[in-house]
């Protein structure tokens, strides 16, 4: 199975890239393995409790992707800087209690690993 990796650097709402990434992932996941790496401000995307009255709930969209086997990982340095701290215990597939299930904080080396195993990489950034 071919692998697609999407690299994001922007947070939700302020830019449309989280939504575009969702649409790309949704279109790809039936035929391909899809990874999403959240870097810089993108580590805000999987925060639980988002309640955007006028926009689509981006956190829920990404949570939905993980139910369809999309692997979503967030950079530990970027997440830590912004107050999302990894814990030793993994609950419902996540090591961050602020995040949706199955979305995990990992080392930046995971980005490199995702890239090296991918057949295609899409980078979206403001």
């Amino acid at each position, binding site marked *: 199975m*071919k692998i*697609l990796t999407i690299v994001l650097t922007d947070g939700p709402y302020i830019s*449309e*890239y989280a939504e*575009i990434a969702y*649409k*790309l992932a*949704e*279109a*790809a996941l039936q*035929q*391909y393995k899809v990874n999403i790496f959240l870097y810089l401000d993108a580590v805000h995307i999987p925060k639980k409790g988002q309640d955007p009255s006028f926009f689509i709930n981006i956190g829920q969209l990404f949570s939905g992707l993980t139910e369809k086997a999309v692997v979503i990982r967030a950079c530990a340095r970027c997440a830590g800087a912004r107050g999302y701290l990894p814990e030793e215990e993994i609950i419902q597939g996540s090591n961050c209690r602020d995040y949706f299930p199955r979305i995990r904080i990992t080392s930046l080396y995971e980005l490199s690993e995702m890239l090296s195993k991918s*057949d*295609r*990489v*899409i*980078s*979206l950034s403001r």
Partner: protein
Amino acid sequence: MKQEKLDVFLLTKPPFSSRSELCLKLAARSGKARLYLAGDGVYHLLGGVEEFSKCEIYACKEDLEARAIKAGKKVTVLDNFYSDFIEDIMEHCRHEYTY
């Protein structure tokens, strides 16, 4: 249809963005490119990007509608933009760029 391995460009930035300029330069260098316009990238159609660029051009329907932008005849408006784009980059393309 898409037999030939071309370079594929996804452009989501509006005109006058330096990333847009870079994208269109690389597409021109490629000679054989397909250009997909989504998000604010569809604003390039106002300036007639389909006239001066030799690429095949595809545009995202819902982004055109939101922005009230019309596509000329040389532009293929895709209902399933993201599925078509994904198939293209995963199966039929040499190099893919996103700006």
